[in-house]
């Protein structure tokens, strides 16, 4: 597993990139910018990227993170890739439901579940 910045760990499961957010709380501009600075080159450099973002460590986030996820998803779809989210805790899932972002993101219960159906 590679640690590309202090906020993110990257694991390759065949052709699938699993990015695990390491912070329990994501709310500072600096955290968001660091994550964006890690995700965007990764997406740029990988044709047809299949990316899973693992939220299992995350217990709190703000709407700035939701904005970042939308920017990531737009970039991925530009590059004909796929994005899945997994292991989102119930309180944070409630935030996705309130904002209805649960309708536009593919969300899975855990990493193994998210890997099903992706090309490996």
């Amino acid at each position, binding site marked *: 597993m590679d640690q590309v910045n202090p906020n993110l760990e990257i694991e390759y499961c065949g052709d699938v990139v699993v990015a695990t957010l390491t912070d329990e709380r994501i709310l500072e501009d600096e955290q968001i910018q660091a994550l964006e600075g890690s995700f965007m080159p990764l997406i740029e450099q990988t044709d047809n990227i299949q990316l899973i973002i693992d939220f299992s460590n995350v217990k709190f986030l703000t709407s700035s993170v939701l*904005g970042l996820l939308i*920017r990531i998803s*737009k970039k991925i779809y530009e590059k004909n890739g796929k994005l899945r989210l997994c292991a989102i805790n119930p309180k944070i899932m409630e935030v996705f*439901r*309130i904002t209805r972002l649960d309708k536009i993101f593919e969300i899975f219960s855990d990493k193994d579940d998210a890997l099903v159906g992706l090309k490996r």
Partner: protein
Amino acid sequence: MTKSETVWHKSWNLPGIRAATEKACEELLDAARRLGYDEEELFGVHLALEEAFMNAIQHGNRGDSSKHVWVESLITPEKIDISITDEGTGFDPDGLPDPRLGDNLYKCSGRGVLLIRAYMDLVEYNDRGNCVHMVKFRDKEGRIRKALYSE
């Protein structure tokens, strides 16, 4: 909890920077914990606070760190009552596009006020639109009610 800790009140005049509002936010949440609120209950209040502070600094004060953010807070076992005021010209909260509808769903911002309204029971703005007053009430069982819109 001692009798003297059944009501907590504090006002701040903060510089409009994240470090200052973050400290106030932590202090406020710590006070609520001392008054018996648990992490489950405070998740939504914390989120509403973060969003309101972010709006005050980024949109109200437009990132100008020489401008201030004023906070008034009152916490009792029955409610958490907070007002946050910035130095901006204000905005019309009823004129905001609904971020849950149509193409707005794909916008990268504009969800803060929705989340504040979802997690707090009373949310009101002054006429100028530069002060948000928000309250979370506990129900008779002493539990904060579930967030709106989540079902």
